[in-house]
């Protein structure tokens, strides 16, 4: 196949993902790439970030001379607390998660399957140190689960697959995927590309996707787009 231009940068993916976060949302951003999303929340929107180690209203990293080792995020990095923040213990924190009080989480992925299955916690290799953290809790409890990831691994292996080969984090949980190459919804009929990165063609992205990909962009054949659930005005939780 031809060699297309580079896809979106990590910051550009984050910026795109941030566009879809409604004003007033309570959001958990996974460790790593998804953390970048916080920097791109569109002006005029206020979101409240949850970090599962006991803080709602997480703010940006502090100045180096203002680090408090007892104010960290789930990635164990120093953060700050915004006005309106609250601290709580771990059982209360996961009551928020499991109880469906968070509107959205955006997580990293090792694999996402066409049925929404997510694998992001274990390679299943025997010498790996098993570690799951809060990933399984987030995918089972948060109302909308999205993924931010590179479309393929560094060696070119697609991460969007027909069926996950790695151990699952959750079954049928992901509704939308932001990658360097596309925005892909998980629909009852499988993957549907709703946007393609500049300079890329649908076919080039489909070729790097290890499961059928429908073209669901505006102007393409009408499709059943998932992943952009309207928020109720009655309940913000």
């Amino acid at each position, binding site marked *: 196949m031809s060699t297309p231009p580079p896809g979106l940068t990590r910051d550009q993916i984050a910026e795109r993902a941030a566009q879809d976060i409604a004003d007033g949302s309570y959001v958990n951003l996974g460790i790593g790439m998804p953390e970048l999303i916080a920097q791109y929340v569109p002006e005029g929107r206020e979101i409240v970030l949850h970090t599962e180690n006991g803080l709602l209203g997480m703010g940006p990293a502090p100045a180096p001379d203002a680090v408090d080792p007892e104010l960290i995020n789930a990635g164990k990095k120093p953060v700050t607390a915004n006005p309106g923040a*609250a601290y709580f213990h771990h059982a209360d924190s996961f009551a928020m998660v499991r109880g469906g009080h968070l509107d959205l989480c955006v997580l990293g992925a090792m694999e996402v399957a066409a049925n929404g299955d997510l694998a992001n916690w274990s390679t299943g290799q025997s010498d790996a140190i098993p570690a799951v953290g809060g990933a399984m809790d987030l995918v089972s409890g948060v109302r909308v689960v999205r993924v931010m990831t590179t479309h393929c691994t560094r060696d070119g292996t697609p991460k969007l697959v027909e069926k996950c080969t790695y151990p699952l984090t959750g079954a049928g949980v992901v509704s939308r995927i932001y990658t360097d190459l596309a925005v892909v919804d998980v629909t009852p009929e499988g993957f549907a590309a709703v946007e393609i990165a500049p300079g890329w063609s649908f076919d080039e992205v489909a070729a790097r996707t290890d499961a059928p990909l429908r073209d669901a962009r505006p102007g393409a054949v009408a499709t059943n787009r998932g992943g952009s659930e309207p928020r109720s005005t009655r309940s913000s939780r």
Partner: protein
Amino acid sequence: MIDKRVASAAEAVAEIADGETVMIGGFGEAGSPIELVHALIDQGASDLTVISNNAGNGQVGLAALIRCGRVAKIVGSYPRSSNSTVFADDYRAGRIELELVPQGTLAERIRAGGAGIPAFYTPTGAATELADGKEQRSFDGVPHVLEHALRADWALIKAGAADWHGNLLFNKTARNFGPIMAMAAQTTVVQAATVGAPGSLDPETVVTPGIFVNRVVHIADPAQEFDLVAQGAHYP
């Protein structure tokens, strides 16, 4: 911009619909969200299921809601009252249904509803008639009962202080069911004596984080059900 303030108790409860389930905070007369309940009386919704530890006091608040014939069922632990016969009269006449739940089981079922736990085992009530018809199971040789989560369409609760995000502080033993009901309802409405900007509450002392709250009504000088009952007040 996150601002959960609404202008009035009437506006805050306007959408409560016939047949819905409403949690109402308070233990005895402490923590009773009396202005919200009176707004619900004015509003007219009927055939309600009310989850509340008690069944009201005197002739105001929840007792008045029952007296107005708007409550089809109470889920609570202690609907008997020394100062009100409203529930008792309706109950004896078969006009209101009661699901009696041990108080700690009631609290835990509400918390479970808020925490995404559909069911849990508890030793409370095992080998009593309140366990009749419930699934039972032994753990370490001790009988336990399977209890299911309680959720509601609405929670009406009273806080001492709130901010625009819905972070809440409570006052003394008026805290009681407020924090857990806030977690377990689709829409949580709070009346608070003070409502400040974000940052007005110390994040270390927040009891209910704003994520559990949808609407905040400023009731600067709330009536105490305790006083209304002592005065023999009637509502409406």
